[in-house]
């Protein structure tokens, strides 16, 4: 019997793309769909998805939880957990359209929620940490339920299928976001369920990724020490949690974080501080081929592994920043960019909304994490 994602590790090849309007003006999903559709051959119909930022302005103080359920009972089960821990302002099915190539879709709902004050006090946790643990709890403990996204004013739309079909299924032309990322997947096995598709998200983070991390188990076992549960057995999950640990929990800057995950070679490091980071976080060096786009509400960063074993191209046109696996995918939506370049290994492309200085606004740190979600 084939095992589904989470029970087995499935390496994938992929297409990735991202578009940011630095002025924060929303644009619909048509552009990113064209972009990713142009790289159709880089995926094989076994996974596609999008992350969109700025789509729920009326609920921007709430955690927007996109949750997949395998059946009604699971939904009831999960909702009772949510109701115990969160005040929910609105819950509704995520609108979809009938699509001939989309099959076996789960029940997909969204919840706009805030952690209950008394729960935070009882657990002595800051609200983002509380919510992160709730997400991991649902994914690990409630069978058949999967949180596809959990950030503010953002959402992930993903499933088993080609990304352009997924975009039509989720009616993305009806959403306006200032930042879109997309992913088309070429797994080497059948992931079997929708939770395994990308983008991978946690709180405001979303991540699309192309590659196979050879250091997977090293990274995973380090993260496990700090309470992360990696239920999907994917590289993407490990990369996302690495960012979360380094930036949200440890308070490292984006620059420092990139120096950890795509550390320069020892011979090329001059600064003692960078050496120290590499020594302390040796186990979070992502070794092996990857190109990733990490996004938050503030912007995106795209980066390659340190010897650039996967493609990544970036371009600018006025207030738009484009990143994609292939230049053609950018040219199809912006035929005349001001600038096109191919970043070197470990050299990040950073795009932030005007006026934002950091990729993540770090809430007050709550000390080292306890061990269970």
């Amino acid at each position: 019997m084939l095992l589904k994602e989470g029970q087995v590790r499935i390496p994938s090849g992929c297409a990735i793309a991202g578009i940011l309007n630095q002025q924060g003006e929303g644009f619909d999903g048509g552009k990113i769909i064209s972009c990713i559709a142009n790289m159709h051959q880089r995926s094989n119909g076994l996974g596609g998805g999008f992350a969109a930022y700025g789509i729920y302005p009326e609920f921007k103080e709430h955690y927007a939880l996109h949750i997949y359920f395998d059946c009604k009972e699971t939904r009831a089960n999960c909702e009772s957990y949510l109701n115990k821990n969160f005040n929910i302002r609105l819950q509704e099915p995520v609108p979809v359209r009938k699509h001939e190539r989309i099959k076996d879709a789960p029940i997909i709902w969204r919840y706009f929620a805030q952690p209950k004050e008394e729960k935070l006090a009882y657990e002595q946790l800051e609200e983002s940490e509380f919510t992160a643990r709730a997400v991991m709890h649902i994914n690990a403990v409630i069978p058949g339920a999967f949180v596809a996204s959990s950030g503010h004013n953002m959402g992930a739309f993903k499933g088993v299928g080609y990304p352009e079909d997924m975009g039509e299924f989720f009616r993305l032309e009806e959403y306006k976001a200032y930042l879109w990322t997309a992913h088309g997947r070429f797994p080497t096995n059948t992931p079997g369920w929708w939770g395994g598709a990308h983008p991978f998200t946690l709180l405001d983070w979303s991540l699309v990724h192309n590659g196979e991390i050879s250091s997977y188990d090293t990274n995973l076992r380090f993260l496990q020490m700090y309470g992360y549960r990696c239920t999907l057995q994917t590289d993407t999950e490990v990369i996302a949690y690495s960012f979360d640990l380094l930036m949200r929990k440890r308070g490292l800057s984006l620059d420092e974080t990139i120096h950890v995950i795509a550390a320069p070679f020892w011979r090329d490091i001059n600064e003692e501080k960078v050496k120290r980071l590499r020594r302390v976080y040796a186990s979070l060096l992502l070794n092996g081929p990857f190109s990733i786009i990490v996004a938050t509400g503030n912007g995106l960063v795209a980066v390659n592994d340190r010897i650039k074993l996967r493609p990544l191209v970036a371009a600018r046109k006025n207030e738009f920043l484009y990143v994609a696996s292939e230049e053609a995918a950018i040219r199809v939506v912006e035929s005349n960019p001001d600038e096109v370049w191919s970043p070197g290994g470990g050299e990040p492309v950073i795009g932030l909304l005007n006026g934002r200085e950091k990729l993540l606004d770090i809430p007050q740190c709550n000390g080292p994490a306890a061990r269970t979600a």
Partner: protein
Amino acid sequence: MARSIMTPAFKIERDEDRCIQCGVCVRQCANDVHHQDEDGWMWVDDEKCVACQRCAVLCPTRALSIKEYPIDFRSNQHWTSPTIREIYAQAESGGVLLTGMGNPRSYKNFFDHLLLNASQVTNPSIDPLREPMELTTYLGNKSQNGSEGEKPQLELDIPIMFSAMSFGSVSINVQKSLAAAARELGTFWNTGEGGLHSDLLGYGKGAIVQIASGRFGVHPDYLENSAAIEIKIGQGAKPGIGGHLPGEKVSQEVSRARMIPAWSDAISPAPHHDIYSIEDLAQLIETLKVATRYRKPIAVKVAAVHNISAIASGVVRAGADILVIDGFRGGTGAAPMRIRDNVGIPIEMALAQVDSRLRDEGIRSQASLVVTGGIRNSADVLKSIALGADAVYIATAALLALGCHMCQMCFTGKCNWGIATTRADLTKRLNPIIGSRHAINLLTAWSHEIKEMMGGMGINAVESLRGNRLMLRGIGLTREELDLLGVKPAGE
């Protein structure tokens, strides 16, 4: 004295058609096996032969060969030939059976049941001839968050160090060879519990200096003139017992380095008599840190015994920056045979369990993990790292590179290869220039092999292999063994 009831263990065969009566064998055997009479005839005394092969290697006409003595006992699976011989030896001597080097018995060798991974299609392998391949390793406490200050670290260019072998148990030329090799290779050597010989003062900064239960040779300059300090609690070859350097090996030079009277037995007690529990260890660690003003990492070496994960956790919580675990195949200059052959557990199991335990407790970053005891080649090194080690120590392999022929008679002090001896005429048989070159060659070869294997896995920094057990698969192991090692079976 009656004639011995034992037959010799070895038989020396001299091919008379080849022997030219040159007498090299006579001059080279410290065990007086060979002699030449006034008529030029060559004679051998098989009883004294230990099969060190010195004569056979130096014989210019290859006239000599050494075999196990051909007349064996009647076949018996329970009362095997070595078992019977050991009884004869004890019947004649009334003593504890002594031996040297590591456990030679046929216990399951888990390294030989682990297979390494390689990349195919889904990610590229990396060619170490074309791309940088990093083996640099840092040992020490790395529990800070990276932006604060940092605890002292040892920088290794290769994740392999030379393990503790004291001057006294080995010759000064062994230490000279390894100290020079360590400097050239960008790694460290270990003084063992024997102090630092004055000839080696210049190599102190490349040395991990050991403090063991006898406290031999420990003084402020010894601690200061070092890269790190290692507290030796136990040794894989003889967990639970101390050491005994017989008086005849305590030459004037040994006496000066150890700061003990010449020609007196140097006895290291079984426990440290100031460490009867874990809190005492914590005090000693803190004392050493204060004495060296927090500038040096403190290592603690323990033998792999049944309860190793709990012990390891305690040692790390007691403040050790480096935890060294010595498996039951670890070597020794002298140990009671029954202890060497029957006490302790395999390093592979101990390593896997300790690494997992320290991670489960969230304290793996507080100490680096160094394993030793029977590391034979670069694949063993790589498998150790994948199981969770930061680095390994080698000793037996290093001695083999220096010429050791594994006769296991180190405790006699009559090592024909100039290794396990303090006799001047034997010591000089090991030229440290040749010795260090061989040690450098060995580890250079291993690092080429490690780079090839890492490149095959698509990994270009050794830290990305550390604890990366997905790069391992077990073959011929039971489900329980696989679970204990934390690896999947081949095929899964």
